[in-house]
């Protein structure tokens, strides 16, 4: 491992050294180095420990998938876990440690687990948790031993913004085919967004050179054209992590997430090089050939002094030539095939001319570790070539180039159908959805010229398909000159440790055993063995696992089919996903008034409302009780502006409401209101409110707080469905509303309006439009809380002025603003139900004891047909009232406490509280019919205690409703 002299195209800035610490030792790299490249340049081989057995691991892919080289980085602003060393650029003064070690990387105490491997069979987790007795112990042990980096809870919170972006054609992957696709689409007039996960465009065109500058130079020409093209934007260090409907793609940039919407999408993500499976294939120094080439050309780092290249394709020979070009000694090339392919032959001749030995029909037996834990020699045998037979060669590097798996996760997510192509031994798109295109290695195209041609065609098709230039036919894939992928690069060893999945430490026998245990489909094998479920999501293990499964089942791989990686198919920092929080909160126009009055807030749907108004020296309960007393004895004012407020206009308005509600509205007089109960088609209560008739063709009504938006949309749908041309106006946010209630309500309102408030002119349940405190208002004389009351509805911008005027006028009666909790008790005393609290998702209208609100003789209302059926059946439950004579301090039921019938659950408490008016605990409960008919209820309260309650018929207070009609204080 060493730093090479300058390499053309290297990403490092040699004039800017970067000092950092790794595992407590000072290290140096250059600006542009990744953590891994800087460490390797400094001579390190071991970068981390494996997840399960804590085996030493080194560089594998250098492509963002090195799950065994995750780092805990302490830097200014906090500690960051699981930094991917193979792709993240190191910065000055970072203090870096490998994750998942006990006692440090070099002397990890948990490496003892490597020796316990025989006792940790596949599916160990599932088996461990099978029995109850050991469950807690296993849980404790796993929680202690597992996990990767540590979250620093003191770290500065990042409000990473998310962004939206738009383009005509999105090209994912800026390798040769992606570059060509972008140019072709842009040349036809489309705006193109080209993204690549690497810090610079070019892909394998810049590092898989085969010792020649020609390929890299051709790629650079494409990059230059792209950079100067006015219609192409290039985003580097940005990967596409998920595809969603309508061509939405999530892009993960270093600092933020981009949601991009394209009219066409081209997937040119290339292919992941795959490891060979043989004993010791995980030793530091054994790596993918492409990883070694990336190190050579991007960072000028030689990952070994003397290597063996294990190959089965032309790319492996190119890697050997790249090694030679940079002074890395090639001990041998081991070709798994009996003879080289067409492209390999040319490169093989070049290698042989320099004295390199090439073995054919080769088979790796074992990579053996040296004293430092890294690979020191390779045992193999060969059938032909340089010297057939069994060999041992001393090396400090093994480069594997035995095949590829297409990076087609996004295509799967987009709904593409894949087929297995024997000529390339990979899955290729068989059917692509409209607007989705693929090119390059994803299509099984590997030579540079073919990739560029394939990219051009995809770009032209993508642009033509959305109206830029002529629509073009997709190009037929040209058969590969040489198969790039070995059909079964798996080599058993009697002692095992042939790793298939480096994330999860899964060996060949683990997968074979899983199949034998019956988990022998690709989906079952994945879940039982966890293959492909680690952070790299199977990028280096899924294809080999599938090949092993096919081998065990004795079936061709094409009959098994691949698993689909869900979005995000590549790890995304949680800070990116969380981003800046957008949680819309609604406030009434009186919010600042409440604030100044000492409101204690509570959420109500997406609104915030005063729960009660705090008073210095008083408890919450005491403050709420005072508010209740004020309404019962003087006057109170509550903000009910969160109620839904809707108008319906037109000659069919009454008919519309007749159909919507169980109540009758056709005969409602202008200037009067009526309670309305709304059901769904199953007869279940969904909402209630007050409907006022403002004119012959104009109604104004309220809905519950949480339902206004949903119901308004539903009203529009129903009006269309019923073919009733009504005008619907949603005033919920545009109108404030407050309820002035109590014996002095009339006197307070009178001071602020010229309206005649006498019972004769404005009777109970009347509605009027008048000026209040100079503002145009709608006033409904209703009694939800059971006192003389007026609900004043006022345009948003006038609300604060009217509120203040009423408070000022009420001061002589010691007017009391009251909150949601007091209102809940006041309405409970009256026995009024709250939809959604005293009802649930299955409570029908016959179960709540309000037959007066259901007019079954109407021609039609929503839910009527279900009620006609339910009427003939026995009731499932009934809402009953109960009271418990007790002091305020005694333990009492809470909402959702269970009602018991013997040892059986017979219902639940829906509303309960201690009534300051009545001096006892009162409540409502939904109970089974046999319990409803009894005189007493048994309720199980906290800590298993039980209380006895007396069943009584609500209302608990003012049963004849006389107080709503009183003359009141003047």
């Amino acid at each position, binding site marked *: 491992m060493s730093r090479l002299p300058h390499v053309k195209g290297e990403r490092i800035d040699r004039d800017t050294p970067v000092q950092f610490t790794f595992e407590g030792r000072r290290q140096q790299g250059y600006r542009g180095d990744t953590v891994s490249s800087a460490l390797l340049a400094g001579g390190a081989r071991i970068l981390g420990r494996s997840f399960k057995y804590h085996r030493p691991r080194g560089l594998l892919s250098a492509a963002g998938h090195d799950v065994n080289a995750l780092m805990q980085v302490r830097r200014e602003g906090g500690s960051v876990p699981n930094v991917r060393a193979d792709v993240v650029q190191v910065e000055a003064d970072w203090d870096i440690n490998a994750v998942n070690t006990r006692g440090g990387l070099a002397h990890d105490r948990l490496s003892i687990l490597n020796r316990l491997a025989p006792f940790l069979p596949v599916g160990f987790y599932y088996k461990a948790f099978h029995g109850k007795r050991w469950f807690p112990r296993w849980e404790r042990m796993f929680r202690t031993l597992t996990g990767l980096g540590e979250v620093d809870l003191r770290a500065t919170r990042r409000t990473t913004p998310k962004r939206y972006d738009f383009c005509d054609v999105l090209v994912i992957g800026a390798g040769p085919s992606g570059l060509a696709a972008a140019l072709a689409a842009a040349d036809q007039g489309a705006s193109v967004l080209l993204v690549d996960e690497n810090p610079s465009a070019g892909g394998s065109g810049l590092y898989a050179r085969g010792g020649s500058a020609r390929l890299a130079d051709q790629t650079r020409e494409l990059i230059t054209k792209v950079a100067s093209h006015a219609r192409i934007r290039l985003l580097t260090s940005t990967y596409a992590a998920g595809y969603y409907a309508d061509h939405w793609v999530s892009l993960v940039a270093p600092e933020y997430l981009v949601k991009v919407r394209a009219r066409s999408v081209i997937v040119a993500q290339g292919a992941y090089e795959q490891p060979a499976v043989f004993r010791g294939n995980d030793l530091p120094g054994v790596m993918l050939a492409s990883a070694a080439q990336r190190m050579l050309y991007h960072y000028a780092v030689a990952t070994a002094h003397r290597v063996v290249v294990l190959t089965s394709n032309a790319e492996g020979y190119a890697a050997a030539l790249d090694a030679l070009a940079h002074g890395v000694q090639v001990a041998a090339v081991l070709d798994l095939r009996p003879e080289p392919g067409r492209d390999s032959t040319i490169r093989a001749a070049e290698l042989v001319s320099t004295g390199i030995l090439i073995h054919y029909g080769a088979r790796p037996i074992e990579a053996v570790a040296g004293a430092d834990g890294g690979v020191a020699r390779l045992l193999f045998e060969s059938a032909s070539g340089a010297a057939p037979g069994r060999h041992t060669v001393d090396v400090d590097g093994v480069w594997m180039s035995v095949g590829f798996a297409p990076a087609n996760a996004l295509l799967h997510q987009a709904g593409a159908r894949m087929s297995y192509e024997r000529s390339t031994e990979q899955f290729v798109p068989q059917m692509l959805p409209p607007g989705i295109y693929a090119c390059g290695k994803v299509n099984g195209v590997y030579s540079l010229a073919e990739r560029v041609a394939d990219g051009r065609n995809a770009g032209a098709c993508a642009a033509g398909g959305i109206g830029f230039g002529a629509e073009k036919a997709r190009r037929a894939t040209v058969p590969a000159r040489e198969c790039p992928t070995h059909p079964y690069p798996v080599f058993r060893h009697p002692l095992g440790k042939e790793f298939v999945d480096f994330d999860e430490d899964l060996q060949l026998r683990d997968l074979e055993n899983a199949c034998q245990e019956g988990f022998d489909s690709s989906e079952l094998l994945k879940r039982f063995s966890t293959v492909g479920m680690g952070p790299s999501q199977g990028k280096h293990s899924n294809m080999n696992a599938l090949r092993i499964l096919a081998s065990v089942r004795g079936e061709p791989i094409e009959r098994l089919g691949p698993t689909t990686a869900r979005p995000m198919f590549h790890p995304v920092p949680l800070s990116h996903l969380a981003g800046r929080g957008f949680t819309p909160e609604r406030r009434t126009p009186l919010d600042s008034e409440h604030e100044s009055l000492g409101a204690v807030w509570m959420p109500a749907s997406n609104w915030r409302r005063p729960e009660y108004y705090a008073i210095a020296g008083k408890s919450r309960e005491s403050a709420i009780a005072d508010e209740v007393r004020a309404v019962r004895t003087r006057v109170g004012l509550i903000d009910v502006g969160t109620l839904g407020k809707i108008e319906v206009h037109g000659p069919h308005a009454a008919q519309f409401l007749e159909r919507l509600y169980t109540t009758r509205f056709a005969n409602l007089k202008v200037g009067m209101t009526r309670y309305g109960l709304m059901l769904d088609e199953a007869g279940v209560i969904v909402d209630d409110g007050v409907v006022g008739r403002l004119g012959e063709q104009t109604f104004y009504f309220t809905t519950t707080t949480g339902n206004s938006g949903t119901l308004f949309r539903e009203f529009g749908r129903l009006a269309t469905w019923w073919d009733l041309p009504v005008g619907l106006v949603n005033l919920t946010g545009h109108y404030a509303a407050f309820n002035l209630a109590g014996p002095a309500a009339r006197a307070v309102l009178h001071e602020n309006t010229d309206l005649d408030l006498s019972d004769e002119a404005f009777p109970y349940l009347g509605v009027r439009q008048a000026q209040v405190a100079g503002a145009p208002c709608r006033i409904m004389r209703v009694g939800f809380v059971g006192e003389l009351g007026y609900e004043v509805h006022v345009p948003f*911008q006038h609300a604060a002025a009217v509120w203040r005027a009423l408070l000022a006028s009420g001061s002589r009666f010691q007017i009391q603003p009251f909150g949601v909790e007091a209102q809940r008790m006041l309405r409970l005393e009256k026995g009024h139900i709250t939809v959604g609290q005293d009802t649930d998702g299955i409570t029908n209208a016959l179960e709540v004891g309000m037959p007066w609100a259901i007019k079954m003789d109407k021609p039609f209302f929503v839910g009527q047909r279900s009620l006609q059926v339910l009427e003939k059946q026995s009731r499932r439950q009934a809402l009953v009232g109960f009271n418990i004579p007790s002091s305020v301090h005694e333990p009492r039921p809470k909402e959702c406490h269970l009602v018991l019938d013997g040892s059986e659950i017979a219902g639940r408490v829906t509303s309960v509280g201690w009534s300051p008016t009545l001096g006892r605990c009162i409540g409502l409960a939904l109970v089974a019919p046999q319990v409803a008919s009894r005189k007493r209820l048994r309720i199980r309260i906290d800590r298993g205690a039980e209380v006895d309650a007396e069943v009584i018929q609500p209302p608990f207070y003012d049963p004849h409703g006389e107080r709503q009609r009183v003359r009141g204080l003047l």
Partner: protein
Amino acid sequence: MRLSPLGPWFQRFPRVPPEAGAVLRFDDLSLRPRFGCKGPGAEVWLANAGYRVPPEPNSAAIDADGVLVARLATSEFLVEALDAVPARVEPAQRQLTSAACPSSVYPVAREDLVIEIEGAATNTLLRQTCSFDFAPLLERCESARGQIVFTSMIGVGVVAFLRRAAQGPVLTLWVDPSFAHYFWTTLLEVGGDLGRINIVRTLIDKPR
């Protein structure tokens, strides 16, 4: 006293000094004279009242007096005095809630939070807060007419309109006033991350 939905916010932060080189300017114009109407007779009624009614839904037209008429749907309209004197709007508004209003025209209360946004970072702000692509509209917006966009920004439904003013494109947003505090403070927070911002209040709360 009419109070803008942002009245309480401006009471807490009454003096926001202007920033030189600001990339965004936010102006609360909620107190502009405005009304809404809908119904089968609305289009004819508006035309008879002398307004320039746009022929297509989801479009808006501004007449020579500075009165904007936005056609929000086939038969729903928003009328607002951008630069016009209130007298160009208020008579029709009064008639709408009086007995003189035709039965086929229904008033629509428009107590909206109205914000105008302009500045070099407008599109960047929109890209962080809205999934609709405003860039083409920013490029081709005109001074007297344009497209109305119904979309969602930071989780809140908005009506948006882009017009070209002397200083460049101006984005007007009409928002349910109950979201005013959340919407305003969130936009200021996002905008503040993009550079210096100016907060303006052209119209202040006034006695009726």
